[in-house]
């Protein structure tokens, strides 16, 4: 008994003293990330962890400009087929291995050729890497690729230690070794991921925490309760419905950024038998559906007005948004007229599948009621997400309420969905003019030229409407009021450079 008491006291002392010294930051995540290997990983929350674990070749500003990170400068050759990057010197991976041009070449090779790599399409334009010197690398491309730098600002640009990756192979994700501000310490699946400060980090002076702990807490109410109770310092994706209560709380502050992604209704226009119905066959019916929706009311009812309404793959605040087509006002009469013109004066009935979570179901119920007033009767098919995705991909659907998390480069939000060969073009929409415009936009590195192509593509999209865009989520972070220096980014990441706790 005496022994137990002593042990207990010692444990108590140990915890209190460690609290006093080590500065730990606890971040609540909405989900448990998948495998922590930048080449294999696929989840949004995984990328939040990487922001502290794995530095990338380049980074973005909140305004989406590409800025140096592990690459300190770069230049393109005249025809945009060669990219030469000068790398930061004196950078080491968490295992002490040097970061250099050889390491970059090995990383690109892994992204392209590793059996389990999910990055293959992101770096497919690279046909060769050449190590010019210790800290200079040249990429040769099959054709100009305006999206490449943006890919380097995400998982394809995250550098892992070639030595560790070679030794661990497939199970690299169980003990990832990168070159970010924190190194991997431990992970208990569905409970926590703990990172600890990497002392040899080349920007160590910007890092103010000894450890950072990511805690997946899927329930938004419980996540907020944890922040209020002081068990978390910060959380991502506060529910819009909790926004007013969090804002009213003196101990909490809230930060927001409009995301790069969107939510919409993808319509099957040519993907098998599911396309054979008025909605799939007739653009006028699709436009009528769009006109029947009051996007502002939708935003108010489901998201308390916190999200951003939308009608294009880019949010209205994006430089790529086409202002000639502003978010339409609801016009029930015009919608009815379009239906009548298309030969459906008595209205149409369509089935729309939706993920069976409360928020997306509510979105579709609001739309269902709005559309019925214009003569479009919507039957909702609520499905669990994996099923919804499989049905959508197989063409076994009429319309599907889904979204896209968004990419830094505009190409990522539109090309794969609207081009004939696009990998996630589940509508099977196909138009040679659209293909040409979107391919062209990819080839040019001149923003003005690209903008022109995207504007024309969006004009075409508004005409054919294989996707009815609804809204753009807004990332909402809730933080303890003592956290200083946090900057919201539209990619939803949590960058800890310069963030601190000041009491």
């Amino acid at each position, binding site marked *: 008994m005496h022994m137990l008491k002593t042990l207990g006291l010692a444990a108590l002392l140990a915890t209190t003293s460690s609290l006093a010294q080590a500065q730990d930051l606890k971040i609540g995540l909405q989900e448990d990330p998948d495998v922590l290997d930048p080449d294999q990983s696929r989840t949004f929350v995984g990328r939040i962890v990487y922001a502290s674990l794995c530095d990338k070749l380049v980074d973005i500003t909140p305004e989406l400009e590409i800025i140096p990170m592990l690459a300190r400068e770069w230049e393109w050759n005249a025809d945009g087929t060669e990219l030469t990057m000068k790398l930061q010197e004196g950078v080491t991976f968490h295992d002490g291995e040097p970061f250099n041009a050889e390491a970059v070449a090995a990383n690109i090779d892994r992204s392209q050729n590793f059996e389990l790599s*999910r990055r293959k399409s992101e770096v497919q334009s690279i046909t060769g890497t050449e190590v010019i010197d210790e800290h200079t690398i040249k990429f040769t491309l099959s054709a100009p690729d305006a999206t490449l730098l943006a890919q380097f600002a995400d998982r394809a640009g995250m550098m892992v230690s070639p030595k560790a990756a070679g030794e661990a192979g497939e199970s690299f994700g169980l003990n990832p070794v990168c070159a970010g501000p924190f190194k991997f310490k431990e992970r208990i699946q569905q409970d926590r991921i703990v990172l600890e400060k990497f002392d040899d980090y080349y920007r160590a002076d910007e890092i103010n925490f000894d450890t950072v702990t990511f805690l997946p807490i899927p329930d938004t109410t419980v996540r907020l309760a*944890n922040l209020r109770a002081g068990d978390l310092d910060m959380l991502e994706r506060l529910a819009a419905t909790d926004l007013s209560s969090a804002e009213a709380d003196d101990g909490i502050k809230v930060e927001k950024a409009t995301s790069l992604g969107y939510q919409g209704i993808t319509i099957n226009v040519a993907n098998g038998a599911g396309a054979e119905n008025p909605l799939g066959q007739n653009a006028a019916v699709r436009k009528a559906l769009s006109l029947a929706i009051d996007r502002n009311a939708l935003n108010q009812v489901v998201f308390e007005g916190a999200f951003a309404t939308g009608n294009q793959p880019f949010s209205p605040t994006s430089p790529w948004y086409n202002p000639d087509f502003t978010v339409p006002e609801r016009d029930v009469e015009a919608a009815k007229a379009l239906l009548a013109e298309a030969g459906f004066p008595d209205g149409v009935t369509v089935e729309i599948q939706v993920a069976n979570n409360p928020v997306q179901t509510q979105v579709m119920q609001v739309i269902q009621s709005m559309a019925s007033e214009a003569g479009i009767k919507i039957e909702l098919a609520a499905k669990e997400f*994996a099923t919804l*995705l499989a049905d959508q991909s197989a063409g076994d659907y009429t319309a599907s309420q889904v979204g896209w998390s968004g990419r830094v480069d505009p190409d990522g939000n539109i090309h794969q969905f609207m081009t004939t060969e696009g990998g996630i073009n589940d509508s099977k929409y196909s138009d040679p003019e659209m293909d040409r415009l979107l391919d062209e936009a990819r080839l040019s590195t001149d923003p003005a030229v690209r903008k022109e192509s995207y504007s024309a593509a969006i004009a075409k999209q508004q005409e054919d409407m294989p996707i009815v865009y609804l809204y753009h989520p807004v990332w909402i972070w809730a933080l303890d009021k003592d956290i200083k220096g946090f900057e919201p980014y539209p990619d939803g990441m949590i960058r800890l450079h310069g963030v601190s706790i000041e009491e």
Partner: protein
Amino acid sequence: MLTFLGRRILTAIPTIILISIFVFSLQHLLPGDPILVMAGEERDPEVIAALREKYRFNDPVPMQYLAWAGNALQGDLGISLRTQQPVLELIGEKLPVTIQLAVMALIIAILIGIPAGVLSAYKKGTWIDWVANITALSGLSVPNFWLGIMLILLVSVKLGWLPASGYVPLTEDPLQSIRVMIMPAFVLGTAIAATLMRHTRSAMLSVLKSDYVRTARAKGLQERVVLVKHALRNALVPVVTVITLLFGELLAGAVLTEQIFTIPGFGKLVVDAVFNRDYAVVQGIVLCTGIAFIFMNILADAAYRILNPRMSQQ
């Protein structure tokens, strides 16, 4: 006793094999494609083809089962498609968590349920009986998730007494571990306590009417001795059966409770695995749960024999 246990364990083997075949086939009947989930948002066709090949999704289901069973016999339950972690390691990581939750919940349930059952049987028809019954009924009717969220709001947010969620291993910090677990165990335990109370009550009622209890009273034994030593001991035989059956309910309840309180146990693992179509993990967990359930039943049979020695002579 030993032959009895040996026989029971041998007869359990075909059941376990049947369970594994069932789960394997049922999973493949589930709608949704695990590879599509794994391929990520981009769903690159090249990636999808590589993953299908890699994880043998192109093989016929019976072949996939045989491959799995062959590995399982050698103690390899495969890896989690989502995180690459070996399933056996995951189970080893999660099992103690859920066992701790279940044991704490069971202790709470027994501490509340059995005394309440004895008391309400003894005081049958009085206000004590009524209060106990109404409390039990509400314990059964209140959904776990509602009670859980209410407790978090009250105890953690308003009063700040206990952590709202999370988990600390018993070996790391026993006190904190129990503090974190007490609320979920209570939520899980109350529902079980209600069932337990009802069963104890009815078992006690029938035992209290029996001749030997009357004899015991006639001998002039103290009422407490009559109740606890004579009546309760016999009444406990059916209650032990109920406790074993409740073990299944505990595991099922743990699924919900672990979701609410974000406890990284079996229940949370299985729910996440189902949603991600992480077949190997689901398969491994169901197998382990099945084995645990069979084991609990064997234990219960052994417990009857200890409580009532006449059973072993039959």
